């Protein structure tokens, strides 16, 4: 079980074939093998949310998942979501509201916020705080992030998105 095994997956729409050690977690695979360093590693045990990515449409902690478990899956990282424009309005709201300081939690925060907005069109502040409560931010005090997510939700509702 210690030898590299083949794995095939889609990352940000791009087919990837690689040989990986079975123990390699998805966060390290994205960062070290694919150089997608926007996926950050904060705690390495699934608490902080910095490594959040989307796997077949659902958000997961990439530090808690082995790369081989992503066999055949579609993984989307912050780089992919940025380039596709899917979260451009959310990113703009974060920029306007200064909803980040050091920016280390931000990729995970954005992906988690987008997940909420996909499922609930206009969540209230309580719901936003609860949905983001698995993503640690030491800098902002969270209020600016909640404001930015709330503003994005309202703008999308007005646009009928």
């Amino acid at each position, binding site marked *: 079980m210690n030898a590299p095994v083949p794995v095939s997956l889609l990352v940000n729409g791009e087919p990837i074939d690689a040989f990986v050690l079975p123990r390699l977690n998805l966060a390290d695979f994205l960062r070290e093998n694919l150089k997608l360093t926007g996926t950050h590693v904060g705690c390495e045990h699934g608490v902080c949310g910095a490594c959040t990515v989307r796997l077949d449409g659902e958000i997961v902690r990439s530090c808690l998942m082995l790369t081989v478990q992503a066999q055949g899956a579609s993984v989307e990282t912050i780089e992919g979501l940025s380039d596709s424009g899917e979260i451009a309005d959310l990113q703009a709201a974060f920029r306007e509201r200064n909803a980040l300081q050091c920016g280390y939690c*931000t990729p995970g925060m954005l992906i988690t916020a987008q997940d909420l907005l996909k499922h609930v069109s206009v969540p209230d502040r309580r719901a936003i705080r609860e949905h983001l409560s698995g993503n*640690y931010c030491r*800098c902002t005090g969270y*209020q600016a992030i909640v404001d930015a997510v709330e503003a994005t939700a309202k703008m999308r509702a007005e646009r009928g998105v």
Partner: protein
Amino acid sequence: MTVTRAPADTLSVLDRPNSYIGKTVPRPNLDRLLQGRGQYVSDLELPRMAHVVFLRSPHAHAKIAAIDADAATRMPGVISIVTGRELEAVITPWVGVLSHLKGLKSAPQHAIAVDRVCWQGEAVAAIVATSRAAAEDAMEHISVDYEELEAVTDMRAALDPAASVIHAALGDNLAFERTLDAGDVDLALSGSELVEADFVFGRHTGVTLEPRAVVADWNPAEARLTIYQGTQAPHMVQNIAALHLGLREAQVRVVCKDVGGSFGIKVHIYADEMATYALSKLLRRPVKFVADRVESFNTDIHARDHRCRGRIGVRPDGTITAFEIDDLTGIGPYSMYPRTSAIEANQVVNLVGGPYATANYRARARVVFQNKNVMCQYRAVGHPIACSVTEGLVDLAAAKIGMDPVEIRRRNLIADDAYPCASPSGMKFERLSHHASLTKLLQMMDYDALRAEQAALRARNVHRGIGIASFIEVTNPSAAFYGVGGAKISSQDGVAVRLDAQGSVICQTSITEQGQGSESLTAQIVGSVLGVSMERVRVTLGDTDNTPYGGGTWASRGAGIGGEAALQAAKALRENILNVAAAILQSTPAELDIVDNGVVNAADGAPRIDLNELARIVYFRPDTLPPGIQPELMATRHFVPRQYPFAFTNGVQASWLEVDTETGFVQLLKHWVVEDCGTIINPQLVDEQIRGGVVQGLGAALFEKCIYDERGQLTNANMADYLVPMSGEMPDIEIGHVVSPTQESELGAKGAGEAGTAGAAAAVANAVNDALRPFGATITEIPLTPQVILTALGRI
């Protein structure tokens, strides 16, 4: 926003048309972070880069009898396994003392332990391999023969003459003691009601989301070491690394791009970082060290850890007659280098009673060695301790004489027209605004309505509390902080500004960026003073090869010191530009101005020459300039405050919360802050600094504690067991401002980074006690966990 004093007439550069000063504008370069395209040190890879992991002691105190690394050396990918003894040949040990903290002592500390370990987590060997995983695999095959020694963990027991002495050569476990006796405390207390309490502050830590990270790259061909490090003080790292590796400063370059959180955690130089620099030199290749989360908990500096006995005297009319404290703080086995671990206790002595007018103050602070991780400066050094003790005592005094907590503060806070003045501990206050701040806070929170709501809910067995905490904050530190004590930590900062060949502006500043907005405030100031739009201003920082020499970012100095340097550099460049413009236009500098990226007539604003065109002439057609003109489209200025050793700021916080007396859980409902940081450069950034600071203070108040057992084992060294504030538990935080610019600089800015953390825990503790008043319970311990609250209520 309330402005207590209009800026002086000379502040005209701040009032220029299209000034960015005082305006909320988005930080430049945020898109990089928003798209996951930041450049953190943990992201960095270099050709031939090796990875180091450290084998760390499982014991709090032990002799290292033998290390057997033979099997590990043969593991795949292993490049080298290095012990403390072997690394000694490359790097010298250090002692963390400062001469102005008289009597402060510490023992020589090595990059990797030699012969003996003094806390659980101290490194005993470095494993360098082609990948971190390979290094970790090999680490498991190293066997270390330890002889366990008695661990001194309790800071009171450490001072017992019978206690084992951690560093025998030092004689005892007392690292530092300071006493102060101002006024006549005994006389003041003899005629007063007395209140006493023991305040207990748990150890907590910074938990930066990106752990400490270093890539050290010794290039033997150039005889130069490049250190990529997430640090707040690049020039300090340069100086220290050079000193202990036997290099000249010019042989060391420190580069710091994006930093995933710092808060004082990354203003120090850690033994494992020193070891990484040394390993790169030893092995002649780049070496990367990134702490994992368990290592972060065990080796990032811890903070606070105080037991403070406090006394206050009060008369029936509410007059506070005296404060007295006896503070004990545990710092681990070494005073941290180079800032030392005595600064916090020193600050506590300086700051207790600070907002209040009483002249009678007696203090003793003792700093004690223990076999626990090192304790040192973290955001708002000493402030939360001083504020919690002071404000806890003031509330207890109010309760004793049956006075409202607001009223007792009104009667004792230093009057807003009493400045300049000094505190009993000798701190010089240029101008503070306690009363204006308190008045504004009460308006914002609608104090009377909250009191009425509290009373109505109490009748329904719902227990809510209001806590108020006034505070003072040390910012803009001069050389009095470290320089006078012999530490090579610069208190001045420099900014170089130049006009490029297309009329854009490049700034190089010695302050650093960790997300607080240093780039933004620099660009805002330079753009405003020069009359150039912010989009045309690019800021470079965090690189000792490419910035002026300076202190970096700590103790809330970026805006006040680095901002003033930027202002002065921009003024100088502006003068240079107008001089050359006058020569080109056959005019005089006084008749010209720069607005919207172009030189205009000062009188009527008519455009004369675009900066782009001016730069083109200067750089590419200097032959067309009049004889004798040598344009200097670059200017550098440095700044440090000289008149006041620190710019004190002030503020007041209030917490509104509910205590569930059945479960002991606290629900934060709302938090208010009024703060006076002088000139505000970017209101949004200031407010977010304060909010972030408040939440760090709330973490200390309710959740965060490094829990050690009696053998010095840290029992909750992970983010699942060590609780940090998450969005679900945090309240909305409302911020207001009073503005008293410092007259020491033209900009008038003071710091705002510590303010939130300084007062949050005190406000929460006072609010919890306010909520529990019907039960006759008083708690003077943080974190206020359900266990602490239920114990105070007699339920467990």
